């Protein structure tokens, strides 16, 4: 535990040092086009990563953002905070800390996630083809008791890999801008990794599809929905796909707020977990 704390402190210091060394603020993208921050700390929608990188940095700029998210469903609550650095609209380095509370037993599962994403090609708005990115999320589980109890094969860490394509179509639906994003993820993680990695039913990587669709009602407001397919590695309880509908308010290039209704299906034996998702991202540099 002490080692984990130190680890976290080191990561925080690295992020802070990077913050102070950054010179030019990134505001070179159009309002709302970087999207928001997803629950594992990557730039994206709310529950799935997009090909866009967190922050408004153009190819000549850098950007730093910080976020906080709460997802509260019937029997669980997930609190997440973290930060991301965008280097020249080419690379995104992200860090997220998750606190997962079991409301019934007041137990807690904590996890750190380090993420890296590279834009391979394209521009969300301007290229004919979608923007294409690859990334990974390395998940380090701090509290492994519950993961052990449910039969996870690995209760220390796991890494997800994803490839994602996103595109914004100007004026596509009755003059309103429309966005879609499709991702494929290779993962072993049970419930994001909070219940460990791999299980008695499936121990290897499985391929999962993730998708978002949104309409921008104005420069500041967007509504949409998301879908995230989930692996089902543990025999003790079924893991189900996630879905949400969201409304996001992006008043300027410094802050945005997203409210969603999330349906996370059955989680660790608790049926039909529905609830509210609230997330705020601030763009510091």
């Amino acid at each position: 535990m002490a080692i984990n704390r130190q680890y976290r402190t080191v990561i925080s210091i690295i992020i802070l040092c990077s913050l102070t060394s950054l010179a030019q603020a990134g505001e070179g993208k159009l309002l709302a086009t970087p999207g928001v921050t997803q629950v594992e700390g990557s730039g994206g929608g709310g529950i799935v990563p997009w090909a866009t990188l967190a922050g408004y940095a153009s190819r000549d700029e850098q950007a730093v953002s910080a976020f906080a998210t709460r997802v509260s469903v019937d029997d669980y609550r997930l609190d997440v905070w973290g930060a991301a650095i965008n280097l020249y609209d080419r690379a995104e380095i992200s860090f997220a800390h998750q606190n997962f509370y079991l409301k019934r037993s007041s137990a807690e599962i904590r996890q750190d996630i380090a993420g890296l994403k590279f834009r391979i090609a394209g521009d969300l708005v301007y290229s004919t083809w979608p923007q294409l990115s690859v990334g990974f999320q390395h998940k380090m589980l701090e509290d492994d008791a519950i993961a052990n109890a449910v039969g996870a094969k690995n209760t220390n860490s796991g890494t997800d890999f994803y490839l994602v394509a996103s595109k914004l179509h100007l004026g596509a639906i009755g003059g309103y801008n429309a966005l879609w994003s499709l991702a494929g993820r290779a993962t072993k993680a049970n419930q994001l990794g909070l219940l460990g990695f791999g299980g008695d039913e499936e121990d290897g990587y499985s391929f999962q599809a993730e998708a978002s669709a949104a309409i921008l009602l104005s420069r500041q407001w967007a509504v949409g929905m998301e879908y995230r397919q989930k692996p089902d590695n543990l025999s003790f309880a079924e893991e189900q796909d996630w879905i949400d509908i969201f409304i996001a308010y992006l008043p300027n290039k410094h802050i945005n707020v997203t409210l969603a209704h999330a349906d996370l299906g059955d989680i660790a034996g608790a049926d039909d977990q529905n609830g509210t998702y609230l997330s705020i991202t601030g763009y510091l540099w």
Partner: protein
Amino acid sequence: MPSFIYILLTRPFITAVKGSKRVAALFLALSLSACATQSGDASLYQSLGEEAGIKNIVARLIYEIGDDPVIRPYFEETDLDRFHEKLSEQICEVSGGPCEYSGDSMVDVHTKMNVSESDFNRLVDLLITAMNHYKIPHPVQNQLLARLTPMRKDIIYK
């Protein structure tokens, strides 16, 4: 359009698309967003207020440029009357109006200016501000932007 949002926001939608239907519903949403609805050519020109409306927007854009510390330097040597005339003509043409752009090519105009991606987007923001000033509806703005953005590749980093 409003009905689509209504469906999106109603709770029954979630329960209706559970299970195997989820993916199908999502792909329906995706294909909806993928099919660009192009309005008839002249209608965009009319929505922008035809010749007079477009000239007003461009005049306001020039005013906004004059007020902007980043974009203004690009226009220090520019003949603003000519810029007003040629850009109005260009917007008239791409919006389906009865005009033909008679200015220089976008590449020629922007060569050696080294316009950055960031400054290009900043100019887009100024154009949006100018259209907001004349209360051009949001969907009309997007349709004009959609027709102007193919020129970006001939403008930035030249």
